[in-house]
């Protein structure tokens, strides 16, 4: 297990480094000087030269990449050239908004999706099961930004039940919660469908196993068999699926944050890309890549811990 742990974490680190290098290459291989693109067409040559110096563009590319990593270890992610604030401060200021959004969405989706899937499995091939199945597929296939647009249109603009934009007043808990409802719904809806299908499938598998038959033979009430013995096992795959699904969650968060004009990592990336603010782009993409790699690595490790066969495959 320790060997697997070292290998998997090493792979995760390597992927983050490669991803950063790739991003550097993309920025630098594109025709045109990044400093010139950043400053716009009316920049004077002196201004471009000083900006290049500030961004470290005058050094060779491998040196720039090495410097980026060296600075990273001291917690320095560079300076935002537009507001002159440290990138780390900006990115970590936005991170809590995205994390709270993602976690609310996933917790909400689990609270609805897992019981739905369980119900479907227990009432297999009934009308209710079919309806839940079709609705689940519909939830999965509808893109998050379409759900976001409709919930904005219906619940914020027409019914005015929830606020339309922003993340709420700082310090006012209920205001922040009311701002969280619609965006979390937009991200969570597809996960309701996904989790219900997943739990249904794994529940059906678990219900056919020997220990469930034994539990029934002992005369345990159906309620205890289902909740204490079957569901506990059937829920396990969802943990790993959520880990692997971090990328989808981050992408969905980006769209939702833009639709609801809500601060967060996604909106930060979008805004910094629109203004070609490269240091902020690098910092925010780096953090979201790390989030993604950490969550997939964690889910792989949990999987390997549960299933020794996987350990042998790496």
């Amino acid at each position: 297990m320790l060997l697997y742990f070292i290998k998997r974490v090493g792979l995760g680190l390597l992927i983050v480094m490669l991803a950063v290098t790739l991003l550097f290459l993309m920025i630098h291989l594109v025709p045109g000087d990044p400093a010139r693109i950043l400053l716009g067409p009316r920049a004077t040559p002196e201004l471009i030269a000083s900006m290049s110096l500030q961004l470290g563009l005058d050094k060779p590319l491998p040196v720039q990449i090495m410097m980026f990593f060296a600075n990273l270890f001291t917690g320095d992610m560079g300076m935002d050239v537009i507001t002159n604030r440290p990138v780390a401060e900006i990115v970590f200021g936005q991170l809590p908004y995205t994390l709270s959004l993602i976690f609310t969405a996933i917790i909400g989706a689990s609270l609805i999706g897992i019981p739905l899937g369980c119900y479907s499995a227990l009432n297999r091939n009934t009308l209710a099961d079919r309806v839940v199945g079709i609705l689940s597929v519909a939830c999965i296939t509808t893109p998050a930004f379409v759900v976001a647009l409709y919930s904005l249109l219906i619940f914020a603009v027409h019914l005015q039940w929830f606020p339309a934009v922003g993340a709420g007043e700082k310090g006012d808990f209920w205001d922040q919660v009311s701002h969280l409802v619609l965006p979390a719904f937009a991200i969570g809806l597809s996960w309701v469908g996904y989790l219900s299908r997943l739990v249904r499938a794994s529940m059906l598998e678990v219900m056919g196993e020997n220990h469930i038959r034994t539990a029934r033979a002992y005369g345990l009430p159906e309620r205890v068999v289902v909740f204490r013995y079957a569901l506990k096992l059937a829920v396990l795959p969802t943990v790993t699926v959520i880990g692997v699904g971090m990328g989808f969650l981050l992408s969905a968060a980006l769209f939702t944050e833009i639709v609801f004009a809500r601060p967060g990592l996604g909106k930060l990336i979008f805004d910094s890309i629109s203004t070609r603010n490269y240091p902020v782009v690098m910092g925010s993409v780096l953090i979201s890549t790390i989030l993604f790699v950490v969550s997939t690595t964690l889910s792989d490790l949990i999987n390997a811990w549960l299933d020794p066969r996987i350990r042998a495959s790496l």
Partner: protein
Amino acid sequence: MLQVIRRICSDPLGLIGLVLVVVLVVSAALASVIAPYDPIALNIIDRLQGPSFNHLLGTDQLGRDLFSRVLYGGRVALKVALISISIALCVGVVLGMIAGFGPRWLDNIIVLLFDTVRSFPTVMFALATVALVGPSLSTVIVIIVITSIPTYGRVVRTQTLTMKTNEYIQAERVMGASSFRILSVHLLPNVVGPLFILASMDIPTVIALEAGLSFLGMGVKPPTPSWGSILNDGYNLIRNTPWPIIAGSIPLVLVTLGFTFLGESLRDLIDPKLRNSL
């Protein structure tokens, strides 16, 4: 082929999927015939109208007929999906086979590259690329190709790895067959089935991604109609009229649903073992 269609039609969801997909393909192909108006013709007098006999889905802020724009938008969606998935499939098959059949070090490098590409959340990668290269349809296609290759490549690699040790492949090798012959004659036909299912299930994702990028203003350039750009117009007009959002989202949702139903039906048909995998 006829038998496949007959069997898909016997499954109600498969039938719904097939109908939705056929409607999309036909309406996109015949967009120039069916569409009552030019999708980019301005008509400021008729702006922001609700649905009527003249404008089935209403008009946008420039008076353009939304029904015609939706029809032409289907063309963009279908074009992006077909072109990008075919290219990604071809490259994925080649890379996956090389990884599975080639030397171990090459396998490691290719798998690491796949994992790296997959470690970027797709939309972030897309945004970064568009910001650097500029928005256009071909940029969208390139992004989808790059982000889809690892999925196909990994499937092909795994299949190749498991089949490589089969006795009939060993026998073929003993008889002196070249690697190219083994790969193209024996391995390729075996990996095509699962890949085909995977690709048909990928179409909705790709269509949604194209719409998403166009929604962010990073896909097709205006005034070219795309479902995503119609939705973007709708977002900007959300306090004035709900119709552009409705017009842009209905085909998007129906088509993604149609391709998903069809893909699942195909999957059950070709490989019933996979039925419980999702």
